Structures are given as structure tokens and as C-alpha cells.
């Protein structure tokens, strides 16, 4: 009897403990490492999503009309990985209003040369960008346009409120987080190929996109071409345009499981699909083999060695202030300073991953208060004038039929050495001005959009209205084959504004190239230069990092401090569709909140710096000689005293 009571007590205690622990632990087995650095084998069944949005049938390759597998239900099947946890990560959480936006980053750029549009968009509240809905883009439309270089999730999983779009979304499905975009190490992972991920997204085959990107599946058809009434869960064999997936049977074993080549540490090629840059140098060399990769990669690191994350996918972005806002425990030690210079606490922290600890000989410490590390170490070497730059996300790099012309829109200008968090002193009302902002290299886009003047600024006009009105005005516009801006004159802008004013409530304006165009009371075009609503949007450059021997100032101070140094006096192109303004240039110093005259005078003073050194050293020698002479005389006197001589 006594033993039974004891057994019951032990059991109840165990159950109580387990229930408490179970309530605290929400992680699935695959969410937490057991410490082994080996990658678990991923021989797993694939699952589709059913019409109720729940876990559907296991994928069988020989089914008549197999469904595309769902990453949500496949990766979280058998309770391995928590999709909900992953989908809150940085790459997927842009639509979450509760996420701290952090440092401004690259926007999505909506452009249309026929309408004179080049609009930076972002769901994150980065100052200078517009939310897609401000120009009338729904999450579905946004996903269709930009999902090609998104890893899924985010706006791809937002339920539409529009009646027509709800039906369309049912056909297309949601663009789930595509785990394979990063974690599939197979060389057949197809993000940008002819039938790959980007093409499927463009065809609105959101439900099929992840499967199409994998090496063991291919997708045909286009959800965009079928009616809104089409039911993808009851496929019509006669519908030729319907999206269909075909699986390679040889990849499935007898249990219909697939051996996936999944890696924890993502290879650089996966990152490069979305994060490639192309700087058009003045020498004209643009081929990849003519430029060097980031020095960290050449030293043997991978992107994910610095940009780490756990199952939360709260990726480290790597800027200095990130530690103050990020939950990632490695944020503090994964910035430039964190790896290379951190003093650490109880243990030394500098030198992680073999990072050299720089001594910066000859650099006065004031530089580290005024400049970011990237100012000297990252991006292209500043030249006489900024260069056009392409990025994967802005220019669809790595996808079929990309226009490789240098002038292809959108026009991103770089490097622009500007104060972080603050564009130009005149634009401080638009950007979050930061007095403590350091100078850093940036990529810049000059927004061009049609808007209406309101009390608190300029609000962009929706695309539908712009298309309807402006395309009627810009009918004879010739689009160059290079994808550059067409020839837009001020007369055309005036005509367009007159047409727009009749359509919208309020005063219609056009922002482009830093100027705001509007009509006065007599319908004459009026320009306001340096208007906050037309301020350039800038985001910091972090890569490619150049080696220390190629950093600014490594040779001499005149790398930056000379009257013709590009760091201060380089030209920043003002990009605008208005043909008469295209030769306009601003000086780099205008973006640094520094008086141009002071910058020139200070730079000019460096001409005399060698003389200053020589003169000062010579004077020190003379003073030292005098001191030595009289010190020796004093020593002589003392010697005589001790010798008791006169």
C-alpha cells in the first residue's frame, strides 16, 4: 500500500513537471540543435496543402495530377521545424508592423519608363520609401512583380481583401516561405532559370513556385492565364494553361520519400541570387571575372558566417547599431567592430573567425567617430563621378531575358558618401536626421512619381489613375532599347499635370531628380529644387569589402583630403527623366552636412602638411638642442660643486 502511494506520488510529480515544461517549450525537435554539427539526413515525405489550407495528401509522383508540395506542411511534418517560427524571420517579416525596421535597406523599385515612374517601395517603415498600397499595389500584385527575388512569405502570404483578387489568390495559392531557396544545396536548385522560381512567380504560380525551384520537379502552365473560377484542387485536364507539376519518379523511394540535399549553412550562391551587385566602372569592365569578390569570401568565410541566425531566422544584418535592437545574441559581435575590434568582457572577442585586428596606423581617432568602417573599406573606390549600379532585386539579375544595357531602369547611383540617416541638409525634413550619423557609402535612387500636394507633404497618386491619365499624354513617347528613360520634356510634364489636376482632388505634382514640378495659378510649370518630397532615397553599402591594402587612406591622407578627392568632391549624378535636367550633378560633400568651402579649405591645407611636419620637427630639434646644451652646463656645474671647484 505504501509503495503504491509512493509510486502514485512520483508519477504525479513527473506528469506535473512534464506539463510545466511542455508549456514552456514550443520548439520542435528540428528547431533546436543537439550539438552535432553534422547535417541530419532529410529523407522525408512531401506534403501538399489542401483546399482548406491544412496539411494535405502525401505527394506521390505517379498521381495523375499531383499537387505541388507545400514547404509549410513538408518541413513541419513529423513535427520537425516550426514554420510559424521561421516565417517570423527577417526575410519574411516585412509586412509585420511590430517588427523593428532597423537601418534602412534596399527598397523594391517600381518603375515604368512610359509613365516616368521610379518609386522606392517597402513594407518596412523606412523613411523615403512608400508602402506599396500607397501607389495602389496590393500584396498580391506586389508579390507577382517582386516575388521573383523574394524567398516567399511576407506579402506572399497576406490574404487579399479585394473580391476579385480573393478568387485569383485561390487559383495562384500563397507564396510560402521557400526553404529550398536557401537550404537546398543541390546544384539543380533553380531560382532564375527558364522554368524556375522567378518565372513561376511571374506566371502567378505561387503555389507551385517552391516545387518548380527544386531539381526533382518541373512546372508548366500559368495561373495567370486561367479563369478566376478555376479550381486547382480539382484540376481540369482540358485546361491547357493550368499549372501542372511533374515529379521525377526516380527521386522518390518506395515510401514516396525524397532524399533532399539540405544544408544548415547556406552556400554563397544561394545568397547571390538575391544579393548580387553590379557596378559599372568607368573603365567599362563589368564582367564578373574583372572584379574581385568581397575579401571575407576570399579569406574563406561564407555569407552565413557573419549573417547568422537560429531557427527564428532573425538574421544578423551586420551594422553597428543592430545590437541595440536585434534579439540575435550574436548581433554585437557580428558587426565590423564586433569581429575586428571588440574589446570583449571576461573573454577576448576581437579576432573571431580569424579576423585581423587592425591597428589603423596614422589614422587620427576622429575618423572613427565621423566615418563608418565601410566608408574606407567597402564598395567601389570613389571616382570622379558616381556610377550606375545594378542589383539582383532591382534589375531581375539572374532571371531570363534581362536587359543587360547599362542604362536599364531603375537607375541606382553609387557610391555616394553621405551621412547615415540623413540625406542632405535640405532634405532633413524627409529623412530621419541623425546628428550622430556617420559618413558611409550609399546606393542612391532619385524617386520619380506623380503625386498630389497635401498638408503634410506629397502623397503619391495610385498607379491605376496615373496609367489612365499619363499614358494618354505620353502617347508618342519612344522607349529606348537600352531601357533608359525616354525623352520627357517640361512641356510634357506641364500637360500631364494639367490632365492629372482634372482627375485628382488637390494639386497634382511630379517629383523627379530632386525637384518638384507643379502648376501655378496660371497653369505655368513651376519647379522647386531640392524639395523634400523628391529627396533621393539612400541605403548603405556594406559589400564588397576591399582588402585593407585597398582601403581609403592607406596610401596617404590625400586619398580623401585633397581639393580634387572624389570622397568630398566627386560628382553625384542626378537621375531624372526630364531631359533638360539630366546633366545636373551634385557634389558628394553636399550629402555630408559639411560646408563645401570648409571641405575644400581643409583639403587644401594638406598641401602644406609636409612642410608643417618638417618645420615642427626642426623646431623641436632646436629646442631640444638648447635644452640639452643648458642641461649639460647644469651638469657641469653640479660636477664642479661635487669636485669642490670654483
Amino acid at each position, binding site marked *: 500500500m505504501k509503495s503504491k502511494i509512493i509510486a502514485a506520488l512520483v508519477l504525479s510529480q513527473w506528469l506535473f513537471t512534464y506539463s510545466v515544461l511542455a508549456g514552456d517549450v514550443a520548439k520542435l525537435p528540428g528547431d533546436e540543435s543537439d550539438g552535432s554539427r553534422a547535417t541530419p539526413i532529410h529523407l522525408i515525405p512531401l506534403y501538399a496543402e489542401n483546399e482548406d489550407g491544412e496539411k494535405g495528401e502525401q505527394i506521390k509522383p505517379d498521381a495523375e495530377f499531383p499537387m505541388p508540395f507545400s514547404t509549410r506542411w513538408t518541413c513541419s511534418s513529423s513535427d520537425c521545424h516550426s514554420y510559424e517560427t521561421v516565417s517570423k524571420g527577417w526575410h519574411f517579416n516585412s509586412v509585420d508592423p511590430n517588427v523593428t525596421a532597423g537601418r534602412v535597406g534596399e527598397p523594391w523599385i517600381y518603375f515604368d519608363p512610359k509613365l516616368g515612374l521610379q518609386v522606392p517601395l517597402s513594407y518596412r517603415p523606412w523613411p523615403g520609401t512608400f508602402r506599396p498600397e500607397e501607389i495602389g499595389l496590393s500584396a498580391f500584385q506586389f508579390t507577382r512583380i517582386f516575388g521573383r527575388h523574394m524567398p516567399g512569405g511576407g506579402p506572399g502570404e497576406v490574404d487579399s481583401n479585394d473580391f476579385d483578387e480573393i478568387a485569383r489568390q485561390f487559383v495562384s495559392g500563397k507564396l510560402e516561405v521557400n526553404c529550398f531557396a536557401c537550404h537546398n544545396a543541390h546544384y539543380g536548385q533553380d531560382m532564375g532559370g527558364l522554368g524556375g522560381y522567378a518565372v513561376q512567380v511571374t506566371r502567378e504560380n505561387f503555389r507551385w513556385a517552391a516545387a518548380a525551384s527544386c531539381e526533382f520537379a518541373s512546372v508548366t502552365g500559368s495561373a495567370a492565364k486561367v479563369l478566376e473560377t478555376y479550381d486547382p484542387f480539382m484540376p481540369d485536364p482540358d485546361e491547357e494553361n493550368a499549372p501542372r507539376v511533374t515529379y521525377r519518379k526516380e527521386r522518390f523511394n518506395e515510401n514516396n520519400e525524397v532524399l533532399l540535399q539540405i544544408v544548415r549553412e547556406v552556400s554563397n550562391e544561394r545568397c547571390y541570387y538575391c544579393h548580387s551587385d553590379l557596378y559599372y566602372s568607368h573603365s567599362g569592365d563589368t564582367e564578373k571575372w574583372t572584379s574581385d569578390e568581397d575579401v571575407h569570401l576570399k579569406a574563406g568565410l561564407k555569407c552565413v558566417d557573419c549573417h547568422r541566425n537560429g531557427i527564428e531566422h532573425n538574421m544578423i544584418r551586420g551594422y553597428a547599431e543592430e545590437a541595440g535592437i536585434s534579439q540575435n545574441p550574436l548581433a554585437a559581435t557580428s558587426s565590423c567592430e564586433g569581429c575586428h575590434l571588440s574589446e570583449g568582457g571576461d573573454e577576448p572577442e576581437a579576432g573571431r573567425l580569424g579576423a585581423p585586428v*587592425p*591597428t*589603423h*596606423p*596614422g*589614422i*587620427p*581617432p*576622429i575618423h*572613427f*567617430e565621423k566615418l563608418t568602417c565601410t566608408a574606407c573599406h567597402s564598395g567601389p573606390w570613389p571616382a570622379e563621378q558616381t556610377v550606375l549600379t545594378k542589383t539582383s532585386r532591382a534589375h531581375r539579375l539572374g532571371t531570363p531575358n534581362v536587359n543587360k544595357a547599362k542604362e536599364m531602369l531603375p537607375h541606382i547611383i553609387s557610391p555616394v558618401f553621405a551621412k547615415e540617416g540623413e540625406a542632405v541638409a535640405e532634405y532633413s525634413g524627409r529623412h530621419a536626421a541623425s546628428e550622430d550619423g556617420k559618413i558611409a557609402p550609399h546606393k542612391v535612387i532619385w524617386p520619380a512619381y506623380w503625386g498630389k500636394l497635401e498638408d503634410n507633404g506629397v502623397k503619391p497618386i495610385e498607379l491605376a489613375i496615373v496609367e489612365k491619365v499619363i499614358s494618354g499624354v505620353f502617347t508618342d513617347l519612344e522607349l529606348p532599347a537600352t531601357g533608359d528613360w525616354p525623352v520627357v520634356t517640361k512641356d510634357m510634364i506641364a500637360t500631364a499635370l494639367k490632365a492629372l489636376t482634372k482627375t485628382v482632388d488637390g494639386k497634382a505634382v511630379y517629383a523627379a531628380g530632386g525637384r518638384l514640378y507643379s502648376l501655378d495659378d496660371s497653369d505655368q510649370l513651376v519647379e522647386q529644387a531640392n524639395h523634400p518630397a523628391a529627396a533621393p532615397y539612400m541605403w548603405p553599402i556594406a559589400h564588397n569589402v576591399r582588402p585593407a591594402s585597398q582601403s581609403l587612406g592607406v596610401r596617404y591622407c590625400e586619398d580623401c583630403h585633397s581639393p580634387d578627392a572624389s570622397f568630398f568632391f566627386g560628382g553625384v549624378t542626378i537621375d531624372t527623366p526630364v531631359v533638360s535636367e539630366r546633366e545636373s550633378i551634385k557634389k558628394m560633400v553636399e550629402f555630408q552636412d559639411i560646408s563645401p568651402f*570648409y571641405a575644400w*579649405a*581643409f583639403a587644401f*591645407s594638406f598641401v602644406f*602638411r609636409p*612642410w*608643417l*611636419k618638417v*618645420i*615642427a*620637427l*626642426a*623646431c*623641436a630639434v*632646436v*629646442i*631640444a638642442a*638648447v*635644452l640639452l*646644451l*643648458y642641461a649639460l*652646463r*647644469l651638469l657641469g656645474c653640479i660636477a664642479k*660643486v661635487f669636485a*669642490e*671647484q*670654483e
Partner: protein
Amino acid sequence: MFRTISIFVFIATFVCIGVCCLVSPCSKECRWGPVNVLRRLIHVFTLLLLQQKLSPIGVLKKLIYLLAVLCFIVLAITGFYQRLILDEPISGYLMMIHATFAPIFAICLAALAVMWASSNRFEKSDCPSVQRILRCVTRLRIPIEASGCNITLLAQKITFWIIMFLALPLILSIIMSMFSLFGTAGQEFLLATHRWTALAFAVVAIVHTYLTIRAQMKQY
């Protein structure tokens, strides 16, 4: 900390000078009439501190001294204003002015060292107490001056040599930072050295100037 200490030291210096003026006025007869004050001011600002010499070397010495004082005032203002008043590092136009006057001041210091070292060398007559000590501990027959110790002159000489001694780290600390010899830690050390040396230099220079004025006023 530097800001606090600097402000305290400068205030203490000027207070001490003020107290010294009150406790031990420089003129034998305390004439504080307006004409006398005006005369003294004229003497100070035309710097008849230096004995009038009509020789070219004398003129040169006076000019270099005047230039050194001017440079010192400019350097002290530009060097200390931002740090002490605005609590920020020296930058902008003030730094450019500071860097412009610095080599001129260095030249003046070197010239002053050559020109004034001899007249500022220590002599037996400077301090009879030393003579008495030497007479006691040695067999030297050292005549003891009847007049007492000229404290002002002695202090003037001492401050002169301290100025010359401090000029070396003051100049070298900032010049060495312009070469690629020292890393960030070394740069910060050199900057701190320049800062603290400048403080000491400024205080000693102020005291030296006061003593020089005092000595000449006594003569006058």
C-alpha cells in the same frame, strides 16, 4: 575629466594671480589713479616688457616675442574653446586656425629658446639660499649676495625652462601622430599627451607672462 580639470586649473591659476596682485602689488607705491592704470595698460599692450633695444636683433627679439604671445593666445582659444566650453573635440574652422598658427608658434618657441636661453640661465645670485647651502657643504668660498632672493626673476626663469621643456612633447606628440607609426591606441595616447601638455603649457605660459609683466612693472 580633462574638461573639469582644465576649467579648475585655469580658474585656480587666475585666482592665484589675482591674489598675488592683491597681496603683493607690483608697484612700490600703489598708484591706482586712472592715469596710472592707463599708463600701465599702455606699457602692457605695447609690450615695453622688453627693454628697448634699437639694434636689429633687439627689434627681432621683440617681434618674435610679440608673435609668440599672439600665437599662444590664438592657439589657446582655438584649442580650449570647443573642448572646455562646448565639450566636443576641436574641429572645423577652429581646428584649421589652430593648425595654421601651430607651426608659427613652434618657430617662435625655437627662436625664443635660442635668443632667451642665455638670459634665463640660473646664476648664483638668483637665490642666496643656495649660496648659503653650498658654503656650508663645500669648502668653496662663495660670496653671499646682500640682497634677498629675487623670487619674481627666479620664478620667471623657472617658468621659461618649463615652457621650453613642455614644448617638446607638445610639438612632438601631434607631429608623431601625423606619421603612420602609431595605431589607434598610440594615436589616442599622443592626443591625450598633447591635450594634457597643452594644459600644463598654457598654465605655465600664463604664469610666465604675469611674472614678466610684474618684473617689468617693478622696473618701471
